[in-house]
């Protein structure tokens, strides 16, 4: 029972240790890394199968009962997030076999990947706000090193912006945690939710909620403090960027959803409009930024920002359907976005460049790659029957039902612009004839091993995207179940605190 909750943390930690100790034997380290990613996938699968029926798993680490110790909690949303995190890690590790240089592997690439995954899983599973801070820092520390590993100039300047903005966010988070502790005397999320019911809904709780909103908003790259993301995500190697693009900002979104549905849920008149404004502005600024770019990586980076807006939109609308939409969107988006960055990595390998001006003619050279780009790209823009269509459909419908016409209009307009920007990449990189000085002409053809390592994970993620699209009903029922749990915080509170939280 409690092993299921701890395994998603222990497996990456054990893998990180094994890969550190094997740092002088790159082959063995790579094998250990892959085994660890597969192990995490299995562990997360067990966790999901144990929570899919609506059970909320809880373990009190160190046998210290809540609210004194640190509780680890998994409901449907958390378990599903751990599963996609494991999927992305596995894809990235497989991609890295041919997509990462030996120098980076020597300087701790694999241990860092797994420590990062441990931080991500910890953030999903913890039931304690201060512990969430610690997992955030675990995640940030390893991402800091991963983003600057290699030490190219663009990487370093990008990393500096990334580090500074994320540390500001951490300081705000810490201040929020301090104020919350000062007002309710606990940082266990379930316990704090109960204690906050005794306080007036406005006033200090709203201030603390705003601090968390800003802190997590920075981490999620929401408007207005998103500019660290497009300044840094295009600089590291593509497998690293894919892992970041898939997971890191979504941890911020997850934390926002968790905190606003569980702890600060009593003043929606204040938080909902705020979240909706942020959501709309995030969508618009992100997509406008993307349209101005000609580097594939930068286009994709700006689209991360824009897509975060959709996830926040569901949270802002706040009905069951809207939250189901957010859950659906997050799960689908992680797969699609990580995949697009991996495709960009293959594009660079085959086409010799990331720049749309210099690329061209890739459709003829690698039709498989073109198809592998088209699936996530169209899904991102929301073309049926792919996964993105259903995610947007849920959000738009919930917005209309709840009478938020303006945000729905923004969402639809932004998805048209997203389609434009995806077709731009398609037309420039794949469709148009190769330019006169084709940087791809000199790249050697993919070897068999490279094909397996680079295209294998890309195609696997494509298959997941198509499967979500075709079997949308299954995922929708799951997301709906997760949203039901999110909207009934008493379930969570009772699971963590036992009978004590039952009243009220």
């Amino acid at each position: 029972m409690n092993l299921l909750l701890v395994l998603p943390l222990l497996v990456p930690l054990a893998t990180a240790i094994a890969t550190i100790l094997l740092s002088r034997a790159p082959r063995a380290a790579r094998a250990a890394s892959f085994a660890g990613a597969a192990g995490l996938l299995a562990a997360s699968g067990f966790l999901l199968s144990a929570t899919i029926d609506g059970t909320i798993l809880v373990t009190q680490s160190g046998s210290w009962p809540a609210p004194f110790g640190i509780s680890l909690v998994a409901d449907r949303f958390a378990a599903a997030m751990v599963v996609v995190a494991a999927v992305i890690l596995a894809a990235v590790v497989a991609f890295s076999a041919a997509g990462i240089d030996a120098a980076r592997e020597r300087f701790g690439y694999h241990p860092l990947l797994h420590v990062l995954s441990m931080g991500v899983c910890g953030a999903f599973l913890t039931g304690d706000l201060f512990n969430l801070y610690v997992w955030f820092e675990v995640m940030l520390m390893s991402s800091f090193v991963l983003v600057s590993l290699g030490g190219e100039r663009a990487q370093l300047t990008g990393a500096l912006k990334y580090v500074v903005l994320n540390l500001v966010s951490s300081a705000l988070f810490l201040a929020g945690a301090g104020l919350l502790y000062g007002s309710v005397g606990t940082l266990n999320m379930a316990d704090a939710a109960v204690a906050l019911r005794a306080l007036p809904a406005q006033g200090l709780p709203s201030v603390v909620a705003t601090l968390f909103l800003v802190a997590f908003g920075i981490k999620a790259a929401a408007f207005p403090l998103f500019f660290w993301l497009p300044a840094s995500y295009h600089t590291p190697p593509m497998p690293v960027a894919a892992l970041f693009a898939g997971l890191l900002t979504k941890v911020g979104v997850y934390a926002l959803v968790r905190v606003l549905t569980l702890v600060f849920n009593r003043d929606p008149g204040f938080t909902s409009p705020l979240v909706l404004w942020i959501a709309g502005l995030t969508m618009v600024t992100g997509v406008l930024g993307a349209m101005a770019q000609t580097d594939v990586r930068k286009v994709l980076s700006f689209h991360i920002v824009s897509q975060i807006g959709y996830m926040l939109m569901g949270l802002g609308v706040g009905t069951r359907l809207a939250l189901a939409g957010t859950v659906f969107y997050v799960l689908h988006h992680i797969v699609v976005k990580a995949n697009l960055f991996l495709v960009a990595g293959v594009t660079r390998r085959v086409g010799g460049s990331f720049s749309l001006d210099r690329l061209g003619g890739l459709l003829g050279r690698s039709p498989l790659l073109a198809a592998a780009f088209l699936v996530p790209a169209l899904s991102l823009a929301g073309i049926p029957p792919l996964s993105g269509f259903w995610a947007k459909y849920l959000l738009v419908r919930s917005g209309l039902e709840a009478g938020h016409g303006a945000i729905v209009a923004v969402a639809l307009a932004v998805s048209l612009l997203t389609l434009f920007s995806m077709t731009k990449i398609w037309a420039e990189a794949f469709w148009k004839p190769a330019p006169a000085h084709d940087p791809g002409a000199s790249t050697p053809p993919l070897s068999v091993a490279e094909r397996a390592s680079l295209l294998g994970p890309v195609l696997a993620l494509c298959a997941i995207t198509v499967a979500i699209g075709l079997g949308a009903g299954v995922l929708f029922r799951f997301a709906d179940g997760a949203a039901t749990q999110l909207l009934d915080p008493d379930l969570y509170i009772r699971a963590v605190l036992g009978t004590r939280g039952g009243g009220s």
Partner: protein
Amino acid sequence: MRSVILASAARVLFPLLLLFSVFLLFRGHNEPGGGFVGGLVAATAYSLLALTGGVESARRLLPARPEILIGTGLLAALGSGLVSLAEGRPFMTGLWGETPLPVIGKPGTPVLFDTGVYVTVVGVVLLILLTLQEEDEP
């Protein structure tokens, strides 16, 4: 920065600091101290050597490369948490033995955890300091 005074002092201080760091480590159960502080003091001892005699002299006296120290330390900490899982109790539950040992005191999983922290801290701090200093050395 070659200073005769510092160099000869370092030779005397190095074993003293190491001994003190171990004392801090084991004192940490019930009194101020613990693996983190102990590890910092031990790392100070090595960095003092590196400052006076160069990075090579510090590396020679290290039992293993800093990366390996980090790995080993984490392994010890992880192991200390696993013991309680094997007993069927939640992860990281502190388990204590009954008979006290000399120097260490009562053995238990928190001691193992603290020792892991100690080794990890030594590894991390030295990895940073020695790498930085190596860049500056001609």
